[in-house]
């Protein structure tokens, strides 16, 4: 286990480390700013009236929000990895999962490249091992693949 004195945490090192995890988009201030309206849009789906209006015409409902075209396209396609890249956060996006009536784990599985049954099977067998997915830099240094999470 690493232990550090957090009083010595340098902000730039801290943020660089956050970008060093394969297949992971840590919800840093940069992403929170980029995705602000996308997350607030998703939050609006907690109200039944808004869900009904969104379902009736997704494009029209999204046009009421200052979203970028890329964000709208990612949401329409339910491409959740793309949504994360554009500043989405999974707890906010989960309002869209429930609007679509799909289980949280099923929506999560779509980000892994596995089918939902395959993902469930992996979880029943103890989940994904952290081996080989701890650090993009460490993977690169050991000559392994850097994982698609490196961008």
């Amino acid at each position, binding site marked *: *286990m*690493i*232990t*550090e*004195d*957090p009083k010595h*945490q340098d902000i730039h090192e*801290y943020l660089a*480390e*956050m970008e*060093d*995890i*394969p*297949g*992971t*988009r*840590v*919800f840093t*201030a940069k992403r*929170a700013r980029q995705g*602000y309206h996308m*997350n*607030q849009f*998703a*939050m609006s*789906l*907690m109200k039944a009236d808004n869900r009904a209006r969104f379902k009736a015409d997704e494009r029209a409902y999204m046009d009421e929000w200052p979203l970028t075209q890329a964000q709208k396209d990612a949401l329409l396609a339910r491409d959740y*990895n793309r949504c*994360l890249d554009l500043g989405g*956060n*999974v*707890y*906010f996006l*989960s*309002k869209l*999962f*429930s*609007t679509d009536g799909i*289980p*949280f*784990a099923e929506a*999560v*599985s779509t*980000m*892994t*490249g596995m089918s939902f049954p395959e*993902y469930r099977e992996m*979880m*029943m067998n*103890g*989940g*994904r*091992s*952290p081996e080989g*997915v*701890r*650090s993009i830099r460490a993977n690169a240094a050991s000559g392994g693949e850097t*994982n*698609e*999470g490196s961008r």
Partner: protein
Amino acid sequence: MMARITAGVASSHVPLLGVASDFNKDRDEYFGPIFAGYDWTRAWEQAEKPDVIVLVYNDHASAFDMKIIPTFAIGCGERYKSADEGWGPRAVPDVEGHPDLAWHMAQSLILDEFDMTIINEMDVDHGLTVPLSMMFGKPDAWPCKVVPLAVNVVTYPPPSGNRCWALGEAIRKAVESFPEDLNVQVWGTGGMSHQLQGPRAGLINREWDNMFLDGLIGDSDHLRRIPHIEYLRETGSEGIEMVMWLIMRGAMGKKTRALHRHYHVPCSNTAIGHLVLRPDNGEGLDMSGSDTVRAIAAE
């Protein structure tokens, strides 16, 4: 007689556990082994009869959105309703607050240099109500009052483990200076290893989780110095919720003893961890759990 902290409880708060409880699936093949690990605690809580739970949890885009992001917020309201998280509110009792204790704690914590956000009205989501269901089952009313303590673990950076532990220490001081005879427990919720996003979703680290459980027991405080990056690398992006367990641990004082422990994989995307701790600093509390058995037998 002053208020006193008699126990600490740690538990995951996976929303699916609330669904299982509400729709009576809690003894089926999938959920049975998870809920069975809480049977001991449900009996023990009946005997303990806590007056108040200081319940450390995180809101999941329910009461708080991106407009306001408090790092540490304390609920000082009279009562809280179950939040509608997109599929209707859970059919669980309202949560009754303890405004006198909560306001006292808020003042004490602020004087202790923890600049708390004070919340008078909010709904509470699965982060708070699932642990109540796990520990108390399905009563018509929750058997005790609750002081909600919400922590930001969504937008980075969340508070450090060290800061969380120190907040726990300040909570102990705040509770013990409240001039009323109250039996208070502190619960830390969330975790254990899980990642809900990206191609790396589904990460579980049984070995690390159990090392963390071990570290909460006894008189070592090394867990407070684990940096965020270690939680993220070892336990998945949402494993960071475990810093909330350190608030509970900090409130136990120097030394703890474990009364009960449970670990199970999986629940949906998540590793379930559960621990019941006693402060062990000469408070004279029962350490065997046998008081529980006697109390239940007497009823």
